[in-house]
């Protein structure tokens, strides 16, 4: 999928700063993501890549800069030239167009697979139950888990749970999907099934921002690779450029460990 040119970016991050207590995690991130683009963020642990992802849907509030998603500033709105913080409920409304997949899956353990998937479409988006169930069944077929409709998350393997989590995020028909290290908590032999599912999605024109350590996935599925280190974006570009011919010494050092 190549990014459509000439349109507005779906995500526009400008000079994003974030600190926890005195620890500066993000030191001025600028990033545009076009509709349909698949951006993979690589970087060593502690480079701020997961924090940046969580700032995009305002799970973390940023200290300086701005993040726009679909033309709306996340967490704020301009009122007579002044920037005003939004209420919790207004932020909840902004998040409705963003799907998210977590490292620890975070399925709701007290609900079956089907209930997990239809919870947000029915409860948040006001979709009818029947249509949400239909859609859930289609999504489960897509991730290859049609037979697990009535299972509880604890009865599934890690890879199956993460695929359900992906189906759950897709069920809200998101404009943007965020993946926060989706394969890091999985046994090595289960990583493949999750990456295959994500590769399918990337091929279908969904806008995705993926934080991961899977260099292979970045090479095959990404339109653009962003390498972060120490709270900065040190290098960004086409996967064959960044991964094949890295310019920055930090990128070279990081990638050399995977060769």
């Amino acid at each position: 999928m190549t990014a459509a040119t000439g349109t507005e970016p779906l995500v526009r991050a400008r000079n994003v700063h974030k600190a926890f207590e005195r620890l500066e995690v993000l030191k001025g991130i600028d990033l545009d993501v076009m509709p349909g683009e698949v951006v993979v963020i690589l970087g060593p642990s502690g480079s701020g890549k997961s924090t940046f992802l969580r700032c995009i849907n305002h799970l973390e509030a940023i200290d300086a800069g701005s993040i726009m998603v679909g033309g709306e500033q996340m967490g704020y709105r301009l009122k007579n030239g002044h920037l005003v913080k939004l209420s919790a409920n207004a932020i909840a409304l902004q998040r409705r167009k963003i799907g998210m997949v977590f490292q620890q899956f975070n399925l709701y353990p007290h609900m079956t697979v089907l209930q997990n998937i239809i919870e947000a479409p029915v409860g948040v988006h006001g979709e009818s139950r029947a249509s949400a169930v239909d859609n859930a069944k289609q999504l489960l077929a897509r991730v290859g888990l049609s037979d697990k409709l009535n299972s509880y998350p604890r009865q599934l393997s890690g890879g199956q749970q993460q695929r359900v989590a992906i189906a759950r995020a897709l069920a809200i028909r998101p404009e943007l999907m965020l993946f926060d290290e989706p394969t890091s908590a999985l046994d090595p032999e289960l990583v493949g099934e999750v990456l295959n599912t994500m590769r399918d999605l990337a091929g279908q024109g969904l806008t995705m921002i993926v934080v991961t350590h899977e260099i292979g996935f970045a090479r095959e599925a990404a339109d653009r690779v962003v390498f972060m280190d120490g709270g900065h974006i040190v290098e960004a570009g086409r996967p064959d450029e960044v991964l094949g011919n890295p310019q920055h010494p930090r990128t070279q050092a990081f990638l050399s460990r995977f060769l």
Partner: protein
Amino acid sequence: MSNEHAIAASPSGDAAARDVASAHTPFRYGQLILWIVVGAVVVNFAWIVANNENFGWPVVGQYFFDPTVVQGLYVSLGLTVIAMALGIALGLVLAVARMSSDPLASTLSAWFVWFFRGTPLLVQLIFWYNMSTLFPTLSIAIPFGPTLASWDTNSVITPMTAAIAGLALNEAAYMAEIIRGGLLSVDRGQAETAEAFGMTRMRALWRIIIPQAMRSIVPPTGNQLISMIKATSLVSVIAMADLLYSVQSIYNRTFEIIPMLLVAVIWYLLITSILNVGQGYIERYYSRGERRTGGAAQGAKPAAAAVAGEASH
């Protein structure tokens, strides 16, 4: 190498004999003797109690369904249900307020819990009952401003409302801490996921957090409910005719103190036994996502479940 070793260690001949599926448990004679001894002691003690005339069993039987006793039982049960329901509802509000980031809400909640948990329930009940000596009239007014409505305290605070207010507010303080503990026990990632999916805080609490917190809220709440049934006996000091008050009123007349107390004791035990069974069902309901096996497992043996499964086809 290890393969040869394994073959050498277990000659093929005894493989069938060593199959643990065919193992049986040796009979434990020591355990049987213990059962017999304990059983004999228990039966003997029951026999002694049953035949001791001082317990007055015929009197117990005579008054067990006495209208006064049954009326007192209704009062005790009614008070328990109302005070517990109010206590849980208010406790939930207090717990959420305590955990909120709003300093006003969390401070008010902390003060409430501090006061109502820190003073004896008996004293609280007496204060509620004697409210009229402290505040002869109760009014709704704007602070430092005009009065909007006013009532005579004695017409508002009857023994019934004093008992409900005292028990419910005290219970709310304890329930607040139990519910807060339950909410804290839920993985932080769950609230975050609900948030990321655009749920409002109310919806996340109601649909995602509370159902998971219930697993750790139900057992101590069962405890509280049983305490509450017995705590209702304290309202006899403010002239509420609960179960204990009714048996007292009878033995003050007949002087059959022990038999009448036995009537009350047996009723209290009966109620708590029923509640224990109910608690078991509630706990099983809220642990439904915890079982690793699917559908047909409720502690039943796999074989029995399989037979039931076949029968239903």
